[in-house]
């Protein structure tokens, strides 16, 4: 069984380079420039660009496509299926905040600035997707990097305060009185 510390898979063959690009592009949140991909994969930029163009041309039968924008390359849904995609996005579960999203927002609000890993530990679930949603909805923003772990820190926004009808974070109701059985909530 391999681990991340193992030797890197060789990308000499075009098929392997293509697959490595697919792996990275499938999970990266923002468009990635070809130059950055070339650097990380330790391949010549020209070869990587050629591979990206080859990949982009290979998905004709699929419901997704590899799109090139000014910021870089990213996967996107094919326009033909937009009605379904939009219906999915507007589906009740997606349009309003879920209980999971509210709980995650609560942890950020009362622990800010805080890393995703910390929020995840408090809630006992992976919160990456929910944190992205909260960011996309403008309720939280990135706020620097945690010195100890190198993880990105998050805090709540003005929009968050506005939605709760608060003037500042100082007006957030204290939660300690709601937790009489807990000596020190920072321990949690």
């Amino acid at each position, binding site marked *: *069984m*391999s*681990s*991340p510390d193992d030797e890197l898979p060789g990308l000499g063959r075009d098929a392997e380079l293509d697959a490595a690009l697919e792996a990275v592009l*499938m*999970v*990266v*949140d*923002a468009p990635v420039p070809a130059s950055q991909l070339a650097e990380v994969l330790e391949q010549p930029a020209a070869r990587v660009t050629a591979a990206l163009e080859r990949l982009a041309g290979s998905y004709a039968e699929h419901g997704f496509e590899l799109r090139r924008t000014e910021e870089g390359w*990213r996967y*996107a849904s094919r326009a033909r299926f937009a009605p379904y*995609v*939009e219906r999915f*996005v*507007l589906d009740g579960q*997606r*349009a*309003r*905040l879920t209980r999971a999203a*509210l*709980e995650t*927002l*609560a*942890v950020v*609000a*009362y622990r800010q600035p805080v890393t995703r890993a910390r929020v995840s530990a*408090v*809630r006992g679930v992976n919160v*990456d*997707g929910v944190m*992205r*949603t909260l*960011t*996309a*909805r*403008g*309720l939280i923003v990135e706020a620097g990097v945690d010195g100890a772990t190198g993880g990105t820190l998050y805090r709540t926004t003005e*929009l968050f305060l506005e*939605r*709760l*009808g*608060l003037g500042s974070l100082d*007006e*957030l*109701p*204290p*939660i300690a009185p*709601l*937790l009489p*059985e*807990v000596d020190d*909530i920072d321990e*949690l």
Partner: protein
Amino acid sequence: MTLAPERTGFQVTLHNFTGPFDLLLQLIGRHELDVTEVALSRVTDDFIAYTAALGGSADLEETTGFLVVAATLLDLKAARLLPSAEVEDEDDLALLEARDVLFARLLQYRAYQQVAALFRELESSARLRYPRAVSLSPELASLLPPVELGVDAAGFAEIAAAVFRPAPPPTVGLDHLHAPSVSVPEQVVIMSGRLEAAGQLTFAELCADCEHGVEVVGRFLGVLEMYRSRQVALDQDEAFAELAVRWAPDSEDRGTAAPDPGE
């Protein structure tokens, strides 16, 4: 935990172990034995040696755990119940039972160790697959209605409190009335009062009012604790004889039979 047994003629290096069962399994493995009752017999001396070497570096609770296993192994060996047993009287029966319990717990622990090794493998392969979890593109995000939290500040604080609250509201069970939890410090208080008044009591007398096995265990650990803190002295004429507990605060006279993990 680090171990450096400085004993003439006995020098074995083991991997770090995480408790008496782990040590026993490692010793069995070192002798290339299967986990059988024969193995328990063969590794008893090694185990006792390590337990003796632990004394200075381990805390009371750790040492106690090792001592319990060591004492069981010694009993078994002394009674020559290993590797084959001949049942002659009730003491032998009790020892057979002790052997079976130790053996079963050892096998149980080994099963969980094997699962832990499997978890290690699962973990190292699971971490290799990263899920797609991307933000909505701006054009799709713009389709969404303005975000609403659906709660006011007080409701939001309630949600936060629910997240940070460590456990659901405890349910009131009546079972605890029948099986009380036992705290060693409490047992120490009970016993030191009686010993101070009586001067000396046997362990059986100290436990005369115990209703549950767990209380007896608590009192025994309490006696060990009091012995360690030099409040009592212990006397026992021979193995399995009556254990006499004498009130002797800060005495140098610490009895004749109690095992001293430091030596």
